[in-house]
């Protein structure tokens, strides 16, 4: 599918990505050791990062979603609610992702940052992840959601 749509502010998104990549690496969120430390409940670092991130994001989201606030691109700001359905997808999908996360020691954001940081074999993890998403798309009509 093609479109004549021109995405505004692509440079700003790239800049935010660079910033996020630096935060992920300097903040050690890409560190396999930090992730496994947290998943083995041997240290509070990752949980403190999550907590303080939410302490900024939650009020930030609430402020931005007040009536009448518009983005720099000019649209009204609203985060669409996720559909609960029977909730199976959140339990089962979350669990399958969690298994992969625990084994690899990196979630999707850090995977991309680790490629940039020169951990070459992470390219294979990324490609396998794309294959996993493709397989989900293929099986989707037959899976409970």
């Amino acid at each position: 599918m093609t479109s004549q749509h021109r995405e505004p502010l692509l440079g700003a998104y790239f800049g935010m990505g660079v910033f996020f990549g630096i935060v992920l690496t300097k903040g050690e969120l890409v560190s396999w050791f930090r992730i496994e430390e947290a998943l083995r409940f041997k240290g509070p670092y990752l949980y403190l990062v999550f907590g303080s991130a939410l302490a900024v994001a939650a009020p930030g989201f609430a402020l931005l979603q007040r009536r009448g606030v518009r983005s720099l691109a000019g649209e009204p700001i609203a985060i669409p609610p996720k559909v609960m359905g029977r909730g199976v997808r959140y339990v089962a999908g979350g669990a399958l992702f969690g298994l992969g996360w625990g084994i690899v020691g990196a979630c999707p954001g850090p995977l991309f940052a680790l490629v940039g940081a020169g951990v070459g074999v992470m390219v294979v993890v990324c490609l396998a992840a794309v294959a996993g998403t493709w397989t989900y798309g293929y099986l989707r009509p037959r899976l409970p959601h």
Partner: protein
Amino acid sequence: MIEQLVHQPWPWYVTGPLVGLVAVGLLAIGNREFGVSSNLRHLCAAFAPGRIAYFQYDWRRSGLWSLVFIGGVVAGGFVGGVLLANAQPVAITPAAQASLATLGIRDFSGLVPGELFNWHVLLTLRGFVMIVGGGFLIGFGTAYGGGCTSGHGITGLADLQLPSLIAVISFFAAGAAASVFLLPLLVPR
């Protein structure tokens, strides 16, 4: 202060708020939701949609911004992980060091243990299952669950969405189980 930010790892009270700021910034720039795993779907839609309904959408309109963002993350990974690399081994707790030592991992330098993530390990059965199997589960699970640590863990939780809380509890529980029970079976030895 600047010196410390450039050469030392950032503490949690710097890192966490900045992650939150990225999510707020994307919403403020263009009403975009912070979430990385959707890019895996956009890549499928762009390069191998087949006849699969899940991949039939205008990925340029809904996903180009995000692919550009993730390109930035790769570049930022180079800046933060190579140019401004943290010189010292990561300061995980002594309890974590002892726990990882049971896997045979005693060198805590670098971003990942060199003995686990290299091309040679990929050619072993255990290493292949860890790297390819783990990656596949990440891609399948995030698509099925509709998000990852960023989309559910930050965006969804910060927006007080119950489905995201369920997903977060589920992936933390499964991640803990995988680290404790599966990882020991897959670490090369």
